[in-house]
């Protein structure tokens, strides 16, 4: 009983962090008057569990050699990553207001040379997973314990290079690699189904040889369980967590709407969105 209450407290805390992430995402995109809210919001719960529980990192020592690596292969949703980094103390909170502004460490897409906590520059879709494979391979060869987490978009997996990277991860038995697919079903032009049907991504990753889990990407307990499984099971297969998500999650008028892929909210929309998130709707 006491343990259950404890667990609930952890879940509650992570849910609160996810809310903070969502607010920060919208604040920075609103301030920048550009950016990608939809996919940032769909990944917020996953990222909350990663940055506030799972990842072994040291915000005061961002280049710590033994740190877990995180690769945001879908680099355009960097507002969610920047929010995590700010809330974890990699840089002061007020830096988030400089998103996409001249001279900012918070470039329109992640820049590892400017922003502490960014392990690799990304932004061109399909490429991040290959770099994550390189990092995981280096860990194996050097017999280091760190793991590599890579967030991939579902639309992004239309890129052939994603599958080149997966086959390499399988060949080299990179069970220290955890691929998370933000399966929100929408992309820039329309739904994935209309633009380029993906089929069942879990089946695809399984066929390539990954250990696949399917979860609700907005359920903190399910996300935690999936990460726990990946932590405990090191059977020589790379892990893939297909997280079913809702693009724009947490803001009613953004949910499931393609147009919020890359559109900033105006003042009124921003106010409404923040209210909704704070109200916990």
């Amino acid at each position, binding site marked *: 009983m006491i343990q259950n209450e404890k667990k609930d407290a952890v879940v509650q805390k992570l849910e609160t962090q996810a809310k903070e992430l969502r607010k920060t995402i919208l604040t920075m995109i609103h301030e920048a008057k550009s950016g990608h809210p939809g996919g940032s919001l769909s990944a917020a719960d996953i990222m909350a569990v990663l940055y506030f529980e799972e990842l072994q990192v040291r915000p005061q020592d961002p280049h710590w050699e033994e740190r877990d690596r995180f690769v945001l292969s879908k680099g355009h949703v960097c507002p969610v990553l920047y929010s995590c980094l700010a809330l974890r103390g990699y840089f002061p909170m007020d830096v988030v207001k400089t998103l996409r502004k001249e001279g900012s460490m918070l470039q329109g897409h992640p820049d590892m040379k400017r922003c502490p906590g960014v392990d690799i520059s990304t932004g061109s879709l399909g490429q991040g997973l290959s770099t994550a494979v*390189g990092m995981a391979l*280096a860990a194996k060869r050097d017999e280091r314990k760190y793991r590599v987490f890579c967030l991939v978009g579902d639309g992004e997996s239309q890129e052939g290079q994603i599958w080149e*990277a997966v086959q390499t991860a399988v060949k080299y038995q990179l069970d220290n690699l955890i691929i998370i697919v933000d399966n929100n079903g929408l992309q820039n032009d329309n739904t994935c189904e209309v633009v380029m049907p993906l089929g069942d991504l879990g089946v695809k990753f399984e066929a390539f040889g990954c250990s696949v889990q399917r979860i609700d990407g907005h359920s903190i307990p399910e996300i935690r369980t999936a990460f726990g499984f990946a932590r405990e099971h090191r059977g020589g297969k790379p892990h893939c967590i297909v997280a079913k998500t809702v693009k724009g999650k947490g803001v009613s008028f953004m949910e499931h709407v393609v147009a919020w892929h890359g559109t900033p909210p105006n003042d009124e929309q921003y106010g409404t969105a923040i209210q909704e998130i704070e109200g916990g709707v």
Partner: protein
Amino acid sequence: MDTIQGLPTRDAYGKAIVALGEKNRNVYVVDCDIGKSCKTGEFMQTFPQQYVNVGIAEQNGCGLAAGLATCGKIPFVTTYAVFGSMRMLEQIRQEVCYPNLNVKIACSHGGFTPANDGASHQGIEDLGVLRTIPNMTVIAPADYHSAYALVKAAGADYYGPVYLRFTRDAVPFIYSEDDTFEIGKAKVLSEGSDITIISNGDILSRCVAAKDRLVESGISVRLLDMHTIKPIDREAVLDSIAKTRGIITVEDHNIINGLGSAVSEIVAEVGGCRVSRIGIQDQFGESAPYERLLEKNFITVDNIVETAMRMLK
């Protein structure tokens, strides 16, 4: 004609990478299924823990190398020039050059040298394409010994992205193993006062022959090996403008955006002499003997000599 006393520059790469791997266990080779042709076999046998083969998936090989580099490795992604410069070009730009990572792209079969393979395998645009990307260093060695030395220089104490172009066939020795080379510094093969010839890669040996003929005719020739096309040795070009009456560039590369263009960019800004460019005439090759492909593009000793005579008239 004498038989060629020489070796292919790709053989030098195969040897140099082993020497690098021995000295530094962070030196990696990332092969893309053409390791046999690119001479990485000895490295693979000697250092299996520093060796990766991604198969026929160059783009992934480049990204993987970038990931390795963030963990302190010095990967040499190895493939043919046509793939290493173009199939994985955007990966080089995004994951190697933009974050300025210590990744080397080592490519055999540059220029027309895979002659009988035809146009699909002849990388005639590589140097130009890659020199356009910020942070990239671009090198095309002219013989076995310089290739060996420049690979070692690129992998030992030269931080950052480097593209190295090797070629398939044996090329004559121009240097000895005691010659030293510095990335970004042209090698002066001869000083002269009438005309400067600037070249690199396999074509340099033809320029040596052309120089000998010109000297026989009483013409004083300054001959430069511009093995590093970027960053180009600006001082060496300025010296050539000051010391001689004209510059001829000769390259096994498309006439657009290669060595001739790089030299002309400097000359156009400061003036002082004319530049004549000899190179591939903005056309694809075909399956044919290497010599024939060069002839069809006027990349011949005769044409170098005639061009020099014409410029000095």
